[in-house]
C-alpha cells in the first residue's frame, strides 16, 4: 500500500528518521510505540494534540469520551513512548505532541521510492513543457 503525503511533510518524515534512529534504541522504543498507539482512544488523543496543538488535560477530556483520570492514564502511556511531552503551568498540565517519535515506524526505503516516483511524474511534466518553449 502506498501512502501519499503532502510533499513538505514527506521530506520531513524522511529526515527526522535519520536523526532519531540514532537516538532511539530501536526494539524498546518501538515496543512502547506499538503499545501506546494500539489503543484507539490514545491514538485519538495523540492525533488531536497533533492536529490542534498543545492542550491541557482538562481540554483534552472534553470530547474524549472517557473520564479525566483515564485521559491522564493514556497521556502517561503516550509519554512513556515519547509521543508527547508535558509541562506544568500553575495547576494545569499542558501536553504537546512529538510526531517525530513515530520515526521508527516509517518504512524509509519505501517512502524514498514513492518520493522518486512522484518526482519522476513532475519531471515528465517539465519535459513536456520544455517542448513548447
Amino acid at each position, binding site marked *: 500500500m502506498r501512502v501519499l503525503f503532502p510533499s513538505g511533510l514527506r*521530506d520531513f518524515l524522511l529526515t*527526522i528518521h535519520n536523526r532519531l534512529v540514532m537516538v532511539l534504541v530501536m526494539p524498546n522504543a518501538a515496543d512502547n510505540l506499538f503499545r501506546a*498507539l494500539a489503543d484507539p482512544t490514545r491514538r485519538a488523543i495523540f492525533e488531536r494534540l*497533533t*492536529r490542534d496543538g498543545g492542550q491541557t488535560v482538562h481540554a483534552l477530556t472534553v470530547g474524549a469520551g472517557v473520564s479525566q483520570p483515564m485521559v491522564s492514564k493514556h497521556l502517561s502511556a503516550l509519554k512513556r513512548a515519547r509521543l508527547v511531552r508535558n509541562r506544568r503551568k500553575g495547576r494545569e498540565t499542558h501536553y504537546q505532541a512529538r*510526531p517525530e517519535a513515530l520515526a521508527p515506524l516509517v518504512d524509509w526505503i519505501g517512502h524514498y521510492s514513492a518520493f522518486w516516483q512522484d518526482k519522476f511524474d513532475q519531471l515528465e511534466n517539465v519535459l513536456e513543457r520544455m517542448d513548447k518553449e
Partner: protein
Amino acid sequence: MTAETSTRSVIVEREFPHPPEKLWRALTESSLIEQWLMKNDFQPVKGQVFSLRSTPVPNWDGVINCKVVALEAHKTLSYTWGTMGSESVVTWTLTPTESGTHVRVEQAGFRPDQEANFKGAQYGWKKFLGSLERVVGEMK
C-alpha cells in the same frame, strides 16, 4: 536482526519519450530542477556543493545538503544527499533507447537500521500514519 553491515538502496526507473540531451538539461539546470525537484543552487561542476530546499516544517528547516560527486554529460550524474547527520548518494543514469531515454535513479547508502523493520506489523500503521500525515500536513 541480522549482523548485516551492507547498505541498501532505492532504485526507481522509467522510460521517457525524450532524448537524453533534454533529460540532461532537466537534471542539471537549476531553474528546471526547481520545477520538478526542489529549489536549489545546483551547478554542474564536480565537487560543487549545493543545497536543495523544500518547504520548512516544524522540526525541519527543509534543507538537503548535497555535493556533486560525478557527472558525465548526457549519461550520469551523482550527488550526495545529506540531511541531519545522515548521508546517502543519489545517482542518475541515462541510457538512450529507440523511443527516448531510460532513466534510472538510485539512492544508496542506507544502513540496514534505517529501513524500518516493522513492515507488515499487524496494527494498520500505514493507515494511521496516512491520516496523521494529513493532519500534520495541515499544521501551520
